[in-house]
């Protein structure tokens, strides 16, 4: 196992390259999920405010 992790002495290089790959793509995958939450929350807020206004004017 430690032999596998050491990668023939190049462990730091190999594993940091893999880590950059995984972390960057994980952020890329998470971004639209977070944006979706924000977009829908803002839209619901706008709809509620519009509803309130129409109730007040009625």
């Amino acid at each position, binding site marked *: 196992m430690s032999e596998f992790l050491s990668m*023939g002495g190049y462990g730091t*290089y190999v594993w940091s390259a893999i880590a*950059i*790959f995984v972390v960057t793509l994980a952020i890329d*995958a998470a971004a639209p999920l977070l944006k979706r939450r924000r977009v829908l929350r803002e839209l619901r807020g706008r*709809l509620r405010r519009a509803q309130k206004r129409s109730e007040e004017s009625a």
Partner: protein
Amino acid sequence: MNPLVLWFHKLGSPPYFYRFAGRLLPWFWGAALIGLAVGLYGGLVAAPSDYQQSDAFRIIYVHVPSAWMSLFIYAFMAVNGFIALVWRIKLSETLAMASAPIGAAFTFICLASGSIWGKPMWGTWWTWDARLTSELVLLFLYLGVLGLYQAIEDRRQAARAAAFLALIGVVNLPIVHFSVNWWNTLHQGSTIKLFGPSLIDSRMLWPLLVMAIATKFLFAASLLSRARVDLLELEAGKDWVRRIALAEDAA
């Protein structure tokens, strides 16, 4: 009209595309994750180490697929940008703009992993040679497209301006690809050849091809989920988006 053309027209409609992409997404994510797991296992464990580079060569399994994706996604973005400019199809604008951040991510991975690979093998993190410099220009092109898209208020005008910039940048794609042949460079030439035998042992080759396919699925999944959210944002005033917003509030 023939049914395929008819379906294509339907696909251009945002609510239909939203549902259709939603059905595809779990399959694309699944294929991407399985492919990445198999490809990384094949590359890091199953493949023998290189006779010159020992285990350092294993960086190839993230570096080369990312480099391929950086060019592939740029071409995809430019084609959609072209369609958006010529036929004014809203979905193409959305797809072109949604692919830019994914392309930038892969270009960044390519540059970073290449730099990490360069240190032990070339003795330097960075050198201003043709391949490295043109790939850096590619990253700046992606960032330029993203920046221009954010800088203009009107979303559709912004998308068209950014699509135009993306089209001009296409000139850089052959430069990146052929840079290793045109200039004397530290970077090695192509090992994998579409035409003719590749210069790599098959035990080292198959994980690379699996990674190449897995990153395609990853791009497709990320692209569709980004495009879906962008359509919700663009069409926020429409009924179909309102229904989705309220349905998720209740859930």
